[in-house]
């Protein structure tokens, strides 16, 4: 019914073009398939993506801004000394994860807090917003 209503709203020229298109399909062409996509995520590891707000190299922690919409939160995350930051030019996590950098982390929850098991630099820290 919706298709019929759509056809009714067309002008005569558009209906003629539609008819011709239908004819092409009728005489043997395959209809085009629209793109389709699905997303899947694993719930086994907590994945976080956010902006580094602060780095404490001595404590081996960062504060990461995450959130949804305009409801933002700061997550305190421990970075093991051996953690390598994928995609970073520097081997040093403190240099790679400067305030303003955007990172993806895989974290596990421990009695001592959230501990990163993998880190990927999405975007280095900008020089600051335009002022």
């Amino acid at each position, binding site marked *: 019914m*919706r298709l*019929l*209503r*759509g*056809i*009714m*709203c*067309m*002008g*005569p020229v558009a*209906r*003629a073009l*539609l*008819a*011709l298109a*239908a*004819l092409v399909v*009728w*005489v043997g062409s395959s209809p085009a398939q*629209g*793109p*389709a*996509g699905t997303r899947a995520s694993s719930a086994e590891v907590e994945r976080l*993506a*956010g*902006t580094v*707000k602060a780095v404490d190299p001595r404590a081996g922690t960062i*504060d990461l*801004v*995450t*959130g*949804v*919409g*305009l*409801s*933002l*939160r*700061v997550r305190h995350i421990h970075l093991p000394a051996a953690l390598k930051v994928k995609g970073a030019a520097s081997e040093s996590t403190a240099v790679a994860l400067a*305030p*303003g950098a*955007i990172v*993806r982390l895989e974290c596990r929850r421990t009695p001592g807090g959230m501990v990163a098991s993998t880190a990927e630099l*999405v*975007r280095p*820290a*900008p*020089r*600051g*917003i*335009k*002022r």
Partner: protein
Amino acid sequence: MRAAGRALVLISALNALGAAGACPPAPRLGDPLRGLSADQLDRFRQGQEVFEREFTPATGLGPLFNSIACGECHENPVTGGAGDEVETHATIVRADGICDQLEARGGPVFQLHVTPALQAALGIDHEPVPAEATRAARTTPDLFGLGLLDAVPDREILARADPDDRDHDGVSGRPNYFVDGRLGRFGRKAFVPALAEFNHGAFAAEMGITSPAQPSEESIGGKPLPPGVDPVPEPELSQEDMDRVDDFVRFLAPPAPLALDRQGELGRRVFAEIRCGACHVPSLTTGDSPVAALRYRTVEAYTDLLLHAMGPERADICLGQAAPDEFRTEPLMGLRFMPAFLHDGKAKTIDEAIQLHGGEAAGAVRRYQRLTPARREALLRFLKSL
């Protein structure tokens, strides 16, 4: 010849159908999009119930909040519309140039009300804003047609970005990005990437209602909530209710523009001539979507969903990559229903809103000011048709 004969038969049949049936009228304000399935319509109606539901502390409200229901603010002239409430946002541009959104201190949205329990515990009647922060007033926008803007592909937005003004037209257009690096498009600073996230965040930031997407209450000035002020366990709203609200907002039809008379048609041409459309791009096209009514549609939103500098007089807060003077091009669809104009409601008329544009829009404003009274009136008539 057989193929030509078939074409003629089809054309005749379809023309007969067109002549026999009437085109369905455009949706009224607050109606769902045309072309939704029965199931989607059912979800729209269920979502409207949650959208209009009034929350109390016993059902999760607060302890900090701006409103007791989505529909308390988004109400004019119908549910999902604009509102006359003005709320407070605040951030700080740090010395190193990074935008501090005051996440750890309750920002960037600072709530104007508290529940009786929190007032009794802390003796406050609103969330305190750090003294050193820059404040911004934010009006309540309408939500009509936002599902279509949500369905516009990133590439269509990014294709119009010209951050370094390489075409030397005085208009740049910069994308903003969320904290996780995704392209933003919702909110006055184009900070939020997706409509569902804007809705989920609004439940937490505007009503203090936690959900699976935002399962934690915000702190107050960096300190956790006092015991006993938040009696409902998290999450306070189910995923199902959140999904229904998303459906309601996503399926709200855009306002149908009024038919234009000759003066309005002239105004549409003036709009193009003085280059308002450099930022207020008349239409965008959606991409693929699981919802047929949102798939490959043209939405006459009059926005490019990019940031533009509006001049130092309009500057307020930073947000993400947005500088204090940068704002997302406000969609003009539904303009005739707005009780006030600009992000802070400072302009009471459309003429005043145009005159208050600065920065990248300065050239367009100069051209507007040079219009003859008749052409200026025509432009305003066109804008009042949106």
